[in-house]
């Protein structure tokens, strides 16, 4: 199995209007920036973007919003911390203007919804969010002495993930805290596209150290190591 695509443009070419796309990365770390840039260029519209944030640490996400490609965002930390900076944020302003739908989940619930989808589970009960606005419209149920919310699996059409190394079969290894959302998003995506810094032949990676088994990855594309100074300020 050789899942390597010639470039990011080819890898995202078939993303249709209306697709849902999970995009990995915790602020700057482990974000598949070249795939986002290719998506901006490709121009698909009415997208649902499932991503930690809408701008902070990742200005390319902003570009999707500026480009009016995003219909809905599903996030856990969408906005710049600073309200002042938020006033200049395309996503925050689009939300205020009613031009961008948004759902926000607690970080653990957000990633667990993706994990459930990848794992073939329909839903789960979590204690997080009980007694807050997060419980609105959700079933609340007692198990033992505690209350839990029913949260549903969230299965994206595509997942854009990032890895330090990967082989042609799609086995990926991540580096330090750049792992973050990558494994569970890779498993959740119906079509998972991995931007990989170092593409190697099968057998070059130690099978005990793989973070994303290749079965979850449909496309591999080599990218240059991005260079940035991590900051959200």
């Amino acid at each position, binding site marked *: 199995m050789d899942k390597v695509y010639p470039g990011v443009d080819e890898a995202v070419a078939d993303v249709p209007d209306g697709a849902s796309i999970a995009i990995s990365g915790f602020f700057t770390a482990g974000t598949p920036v070249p795939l986002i840039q290719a998506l901006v260029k490709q121009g698909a519209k009415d997208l649902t973007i499932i991503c930690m944030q809408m701008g902070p640490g990742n200005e390319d996400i902003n570009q999707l919003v500026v480009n009016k490609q995003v219909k809905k965002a599903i996030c856990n930390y*969408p906005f710049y911390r600073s*309200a002042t900076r938020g006033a200049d944020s395309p996503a925050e302003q689009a939300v205020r203007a009613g031009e961008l739908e948004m759902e926000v989940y*607690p*970080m653990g*619930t957000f*990633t667990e919804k993706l994990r459930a989808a990848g794992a073939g589970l329909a839903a789960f009960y979590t204690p997080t969010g009980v007694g807050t606005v997060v419980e609105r419209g959700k079933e609340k149920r007692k198990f033992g002495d505690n209350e839990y919310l029913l949260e549903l699996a969230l299965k994206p059409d595509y997942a854009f993930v990032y890895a330090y190394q990967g082989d042609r079969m799609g086995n990926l290894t991540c580096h330090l*805290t750049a792992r973050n959302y990558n494994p*569970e998003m890779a498993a959740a995506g119906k079509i998972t596209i991995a931007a990989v810094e170092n593409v190697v032949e099968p057998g070059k990676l130690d099978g005990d150290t793989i973070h994303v088994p290749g079965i979850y990855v449909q496309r591999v594309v080599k990218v240059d190591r991005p*260079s940035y100074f991590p*900051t959200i300020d």
Partner: protein
Amino acid sequence: MNVTKKFKGLSRELIALRVAGELEDGTYVNLGIGIPTLVSDWIEGRDIVLQAELGMLNTGPLASQDEVEQDLINASCQPVTELPGSCYFSENESFAMIRGGYMDAAVLGALQVSEKGDLAGWQNPSRGLSEDIGNIGGSMDLAVGARKVIVAMMHVTNDGQAKIVKECSYPLTAQAVVDLIVTDLAVIEVTPKGLLLREVAAGLTAEDVQSVTEAKLIVSPDLTEIQL
């Protein structure tokens, strides 16, 4: 409650120092954004393992300019360093361990804390967003999952609003989760009977602290100056 009196108390750094005194050796701790982050400066060398919610245990100090590794950041997107015994895992695993009860303590900032220990910390309505939209991040999971929740914050807002209140008016992070509140003016324990004022800043009386606190404080018979 609008507060007219202003008192001088601990600096942000000393609030963090007081919190550090609450943390026990041999424990796993998550530090939130803001004053809680400063706690790390006071526990260097101690047998406390810090968790970074994006997927790391045993987070080391902030990286100096020439130590920066772009793949190694903390939850505030600051470059950090590793320590012997550091390990990495996915975000999902990180929140599994948070919800699973493995954090001995979480130190969080807050906008408001109620007398029942309700915590409001993720959304300030003054920003003008719909009340179900904002930066929840990891706060709700941490507030629910940690065995002990310590709030570290200034006692009143910059514009003189009480933050320790009868009922939170801001969107909640979690209900009845706060165990201890450490501010520039006081150390207050959340007990089944209400808020127990245990320590006050040097030069202040229990009445002073009550005057800038909306919730009713029970004054501890063992009231002391803040123990640094």
